[in-house]
């Protein structure tokens, strides 16, 4: 009996999570369009999500581009297709790797901070205090965080695309001796801005919405003191990352 009870409870919890996510999405959409618009807070969050994440994004995408060039060069050399390495690196990065890896890194860095901040505000009654002062916490806390994530993720991915491709170039040209001119030519030969780059940026914006909403919902509904804040933070990163990966498949299918 215990076994079935546990399964039932897990299913209920998953539905509860989904319910909270979409309910909060609705509340956020409603409060987003209502004044007052807190531009300074939005800018502050944009700096936290965007500017402060640049070093992590640079390192992640640079090394991903480098590894990608190394691996594909090795494989493609077996059937004399080394000249296509640039294209593979460019397409993989713009369409898939840069959006997903940047989203995962930013979820770890910013999503956890969002959940911890909102969670500790919840357990110390600061969110109740906001409501008591006639300020809607969804509008004051969640709207700027989610909007900042939606706006900044595509910008981070643009940086990631450029740096990743440069990483690929470095390895292919400097380390493996590819011809620099033909490598660059090849990189852009098959790259379609609208289909490849823009689809990656749309994905990035969706990932921003998903991870920021997940983190904010986790933080907002925190219970159970300091331990609860820790639990919310962990869950924000785990379910945020998983949601990004699952959503990636459906978005790719949609934008294919």
């Amino acid at each position, binding site marked *: 009996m215990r076994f079935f009870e546990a399964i039932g409870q897990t299913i209920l919890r998953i539905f509860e999570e989904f319910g909270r996510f979409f309910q909060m999405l609705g509340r956020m959409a*409603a409060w987003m369009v*209502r004044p*007052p618009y807190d531009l300074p807070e939005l800018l502050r969050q944009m700096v936290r999500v965007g500017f402060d994440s640049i070093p992590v994004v640079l390192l992640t995408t640079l090394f991903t581009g480098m590894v990608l060039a190394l691996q594909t060069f090795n494989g493609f050399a077996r059937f004399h297709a080394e000249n296509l390495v640039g294209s593979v690196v460019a397409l993989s990065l713009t369409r898939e790797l840069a959006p997903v890896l940047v989203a995962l890194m930013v979820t770890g860095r910013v999503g956890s901070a969002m959940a911890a901040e909102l969670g500790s*505000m919840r357990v*110390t*009654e*600061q969110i*109740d*205090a906001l*409501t*008591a*002062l*006639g*300020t*809607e916490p969804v509008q004051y806390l969640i709207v700027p965080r989610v909007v900042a994530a939606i706006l900044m993720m595509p910008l981070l991915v643009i940086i990631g695309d450029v740096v990743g491709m440069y990483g690929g170039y470095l390895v292919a040209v400097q380390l493996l001796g590819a011809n620099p001119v033909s490598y660059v030519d090849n990189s852009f030969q098959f790259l379609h801005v609208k289909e490849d780059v823009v689809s990656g940026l749309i994905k990035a914006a969706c990932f921003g919405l998903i991870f920021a909403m997940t983190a904010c919902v986790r933080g907002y509904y925190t219970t159970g003191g300091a331990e609860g804040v820790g639990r919310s933070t962990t869950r924000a990163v785990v379910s945020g990352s998983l949601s990004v990966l699952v959503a990636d498949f459906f978005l790719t299918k949609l934008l294919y």
Partner: protein
Amino acid sequence: MSAPAEKARPPAPAAESHSKLEVRDVHKSFGPKVVLDGISFSVAEGESLVILGPSGTGKSVLLKHLIGLLEPDSGTVLVDGQDFWALDAVEQGQVRKKFGMSFQEGALFDSMSVFDNVAFPLRRSGRKPSEVRERVKECLDIVHLPDVSEKRPSELSGGMRRRVGFARAIAHQPEILLFDEPNTGLDPIMTEIIDEVILEMRERLEATIVTITHHVASAQKIGDRVALLFGGKILYDAPPEEFLRAKDPAVRQFVEGNAQGPLTVEDERLSRNRVKEGA
């Protein structure tokens, strides 16, 4: 539901036309635990009601219902005759601005300085920076903390944090003040200071006040009426002198601080039921 079954005398009847705040037959449960069991009372404009009760009886839950931080399972909360939960979210926000609430531990925004905390409701309502500065100074003077505006909440003592919480609660000149255990966990001197500050704020703002506490002496000092909350109901409701002289066994036990009595028996019975439910 009919009026709650009272052991002593029923709460003061709701004076519809003069009630600033009215609670009608409010029920609230968390899972199997019934916290408020058909509670009704009203507070007249300018009146100060103190709700006493042992720890864990749902005093804070009741206070959060008054300002709409919690929604009742059934029953209504009326502010100036308006049913709070019949309003839309924007109107609820407007009604909440009539309130100033002080939380148990202050609930100050820890990422802001004391000045920014007190200025928060003023800035949100679009006041000019010069007005904000002036009003913040005035509020910090009222709570006798003129020199802490640049400090962070973490640098303040418990009593100071509560008083900054008071200053933030009164900054936008609310009509109703709610105090959640304003002097719990403070030394006797600070308890006395807090009571004085509450009385001073009452005088200056001419506000309606609801305080929850378990300090009988504070209740006597700051309340026009004192009510005893237990088992989700108001057991007794009277002016302080009458409350202290009451023969009701529950009131006597609470006022005299006896370990044995109806409150303890009831509490043990509730705990036993909870254990059974959990088993």
